[in-house]
């Protein structure tokens, strides 16, 4: 579609009045490309994000927790499907996007490149990782692109359910036996800074941000969202009875916020670049699920052709 003056004006008007851009509407190529990249990355994150939690499905310590975790991981697959469908409204195919993931032309959220080392990590991921995701994603329910905004409404609702479940896992552990309490604390110690890093680099180093703000794709700065997350977590950690591993974490009455130690952004960059503890395992797992089932997809295609 070429940009007529009218189309551009209509688009600008939609953005200016905080209305939704829909698939049939004209949109700037860069807007479309930005959205495809962002929605795809989000979809990839849901799919890769199944792995760290699925890692504890076979070993959940009670049948009730096993069922809850299974339903959660299933939801993530559903979110992935839902988001790929949203991306497809922008004129790409899911196969293209999956290929971009497998060929590592696309990224996914770096948080999933950390390993899940104990059952407590299932709780901590729910509490901190889903918690951070919600803080990141709630503003996206007002994203200027309609299909993405609507997907995020549904996803945020489910994520918030997951977050409460994770919190509950951790609460049970931190009020359990000594060994369970240790397990909970050890887990929070490992996940705190990677969770803070989920909001991306500090504003001063953040690329893409300004344009995304102007387009109504992004609504708050990385640092603002990170602060909001910390402010939410501190009182929750107190109720949980776990210690956030930051000796400099304290209330700043002047700012009306908690002061905190920022995550190690050099580590974040290393993980993004492919050198997190589990990047290789995650991609190997995803590729293997894809590659070793080529024969299944071939069979389905052959059967469909014979039985139209």
């Amino acid at each position, binding site marked *: 579609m070429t940009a007529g003056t009218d189309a551009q004006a209509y688009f600008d008007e939609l953005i200016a009045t905080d209305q939704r851009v829909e698939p049939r509407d004209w949109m700037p190529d860069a807007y479309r490309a930005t959205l495809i990249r962002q929605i795809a990355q989000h979809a990839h994150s849901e*799919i890769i994000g*199944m*792995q760290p939690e*699925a890692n*504890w*499905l*076979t*070993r*959940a*310590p*009670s*049948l*009730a*927790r*096993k*069922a809850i975790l*299974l*339903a959660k*991981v*299933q939801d993530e*697959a*559903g979110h*992935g*499907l839902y988001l*790929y469908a949203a991306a497809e409204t922008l004129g790409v195919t899911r196969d293209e996007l999956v290929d971009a993931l497998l060929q590592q032309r696309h990224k996914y959220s770096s948080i999933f490149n950390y390993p899940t080392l104990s*059952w407590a990590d299932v709780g901590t991921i729910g509490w901190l990782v889903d918690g951070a995701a919600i803080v990141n994603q709630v503003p996206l329910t007002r994203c200027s692109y309609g299909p993405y905004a609507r997907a995020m409404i549904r996803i945020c609702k489910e994520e918030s359910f997951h977050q409460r479940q994770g919190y509950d896992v951790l609460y*049970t552990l931190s009020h*359990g*036996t000594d*060994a*369970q309490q240790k397990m909970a604390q050890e887990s929070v110690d490992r996940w705190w800074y990677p969770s803070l890093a989920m909001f991306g680099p500090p504003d001063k180093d953040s690329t893409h941000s300004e344009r995304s703000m102007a387009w109504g794709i992004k609504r708050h700065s990385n640092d603002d969202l990170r602060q909001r997350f910390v402010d939410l977590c501190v009182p929750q950690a107190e109720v949980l009875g776990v210690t956030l591993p930051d000796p400099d974490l304290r209330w700043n009455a002047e700012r009306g916020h908690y002061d905190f130690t920022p995550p190690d952004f050099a580590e974040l960059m290393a993980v993004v670049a492919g050198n997190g503890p589990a990047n290789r395992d995650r991609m190997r*797992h995803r590729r*293997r*699920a894809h590659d*070793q*089932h080529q*024969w*299944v*997809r*071939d*069979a*389905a*295609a*052959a*059967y*469909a052709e*014979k*039985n139209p």
Partner: protein
Amino acid sequence: MSMLAIADDALIAAQRLLAWVSRAPSMEEDVALANIALDQLGVARALLSAIGDEDALAFGREAHEFRNCLLVELPDDPGGGVWGDFGVLTVKLLFLSAYQKLLYDRLADGEPGVLKDVAGKARKESAYHLDHATRWTLRLGDGTAESHARAQDAVDALWPYTHEFDRRADWLAVVEPVLAKATLTRPADGWAPTGGREGRHTEHLSYLLAEMQSTHRAHPGATW
């Protein structure tokens, strides 16, 4: 069929199925297999809770105390790895869900009680499982030469274990037409291993339990 045996079939089947989540041939299949695993887990929990403490029963018993049929404990990968063979998964689910559907239908129409209540819901779920497995059996059996060979290998390997199902004639009446339509050969009857219902299992079950029970057993007396 004791209630415990029905529960254990569902529990062990769920444990095998959920290992597929994040490893399935497609995202839709990840969702479907998680769904089937959730259904099986739901039946297991309802019945185990009727018998006693569901977690004590799931995590506190040793292999010889389980009463599941041998079929459900067989690994989807004969090498014991976490990456199963989708042909084995499909055929196993076909065999199991055909059996479970018949069983739940009888129980749902039977005497009032927990079994009737659980079966009333489970019959619909197992009808879906059977339908899902049937569709895949057709695709694999009547798909490519490779998929046909893999599906037939799975049928041949798993067939002996189906002798443990009661009311075999009814079961054959469900399964044989599916195999025929999928262009798969129905194996001759021969070796018919048994023992699951008496707690004599294969060497595979204790490994499955070792993993399943590991977190629970590492923290005796804990609440989760």
